[in-house]
């Protein structure tokens, strides 16, 4: 029987879509996010559909806050078998108006937040010799684009951290899945004015992730596949060409 899954950043976007898919697949879902009213509404929705669900408010970038939420959810729904570190934020900056505080905040939420979620769940998983860590990184981990400084840094760091962890945890019975989606239609990308090739619906992405979680297999999941291929091959293009092309592409929307 599917067990208890905790999802951070569960109130909107990919997180909420994951919660719905996992509930449909029979998992009990623990929801973590900052906004209580959104969590309450989603929990009520899932429970009405016959699923077991609970919520806890937390700021993932704060270890204590994340730990408290985790403890409360384990009390409500039992031992956490799958931790999905999904919470993430995005903003673009220009070098001439660069604000380090904004950049640091992105790193704290996207990197430390994901690692906090894994860190509070790991002791139990290691003790039981069983568990799954899932982190929602981004295709941006594969190639840093102009203006995406802190976001690209955060996703590169997160993919690197969890892929490294996967080696270390292989003999502990804990699998690690690193998801690197391309563009997904969510609130986070709603303000992007540049073209977003291959944009996925959050629900479709969630279905794909849940199928992978059910298989129990870890590894790296880059989707859509052509995004991974394109960004990987981009390294073969000389930097001065690629950077100018990327800048032109990302500014396409600004004249609209």
């Amino acid at each position, binding site marked *: 029987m599917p067990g208890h899954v905790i999802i951070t950043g569960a109130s909107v976007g990919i997180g909420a879509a994951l919660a719905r898919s996992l509930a449909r697949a029979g998992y009990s879902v623990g929801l973590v996010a900052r906004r209580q009213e959104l969590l309450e509404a989603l929990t009520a929705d899932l429970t009405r559909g016959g699923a077991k669900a609970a919520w806890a408010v937390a700021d993932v970038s704060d270890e204590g806050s994340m730990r408290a939420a985790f403890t409360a959810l384990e009390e409500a729904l039992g031992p956490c078998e799958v931790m999905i570190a999904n919470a993430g934020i995005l903003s673009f900056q*220009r070098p001439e108006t660069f604000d380090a505080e904004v950049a640091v905040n992105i790193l704290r939420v996207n990197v430390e937040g994901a690692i906090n979620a*894994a860190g509070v769940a790991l002791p139990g998983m290691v003790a039981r010799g069983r568990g799954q860590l899932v982190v929602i990184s981004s295709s941006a981990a594969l190639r*840093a684009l102009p203006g995406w400084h802190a976001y690209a840094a955060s996703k*590169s*760091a*997160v993919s690197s951290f969890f892929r490294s962890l996967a080696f270390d945890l292989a003999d502990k019975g804990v699998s690690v899945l690193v998801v690197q989606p391309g563009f997904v239609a969510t609130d986070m990308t709603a303000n992007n004015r540049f073209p977003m090739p291959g944009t996925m619906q959050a629900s479709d992405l969630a279905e794909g992730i849940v199928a992978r979680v059910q298989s129990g297999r870890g*590894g790296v999941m880059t989707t859509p596949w052509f995004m991974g291929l394109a960004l990987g091959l981009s390294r073969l293009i000389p930097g*001065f060409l690629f950077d100018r092309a990327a800048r032109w592409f990302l500014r396409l929307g600004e004249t609209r």
Partner: protein
Amino acid sequence: MGQHALIVGASSGIGAALALELALEGYDVGLIARRTDRLAEVAERVRARGGVAAYRAADVNDAAQLKAAIAALEEVLGPVEVIIANAGIGENTDAANLDLAHVRRVLRTNLEGVVLAIGAVLPAMTQRGHGHIGAVTSIAGMRPIPMIAAYGASKAGASAFLEALRADLRGSGVTVTDLCPGYVKTDMLKPQESGAYPPFTMDAGDTARRMVRALLAGRDSLVFPWPLAWMSRFAAMLPDALIGPLLRRLAPKPPPALPG
């Protein structure tokens, strides 16, 4: 009077060697690190060779402190023309007993430290339209490997940050160089039990010389020494499922030394 070259993480190792090297190139060097006494020593060595040096103590984990130190040095030496974000710590990660405080320490020094240091001079440098930005990353950031999750992540993140910045600034007159070394003989690199250093270990002075040359030439990156660079590039293309068993067979016990 020379132009201002700022080194963050300048009290020892690669940073101290970078200070001497940039002074030789005619720059007035601004030095930042936590330990005042060590900074004073480095400044003394620069002056003994006829260079100009000023220093301020600051912790790269503390945004306000770092900003104040940079502002103070700019008052003495003028606007920063060259910056190298070098401050870094090396710690191994024990994944099965993951210590979140350790992860924070490594990420905040090696990744946030780079963002804060460069961020403090970036807007003004961009508006002036000339300058050189560099950060010391590591070959360890090029492909995830066991036992150094936090260190590898911090360096991978720093390299990505530089890559995005370079994409923005290319053609603007401000250059961004990723200084990505393998093993360098510093306090951070402990010799193995036999007393031997890892393969291709470089001397800090040599390392600094090559870094400064690449930085001032405005190169995109300097990944060296070349045998490790190509090994890492090749390993980065192989899937984790293949690398895992391979590394387990090769991995030295106790935990590996940290490149960079």
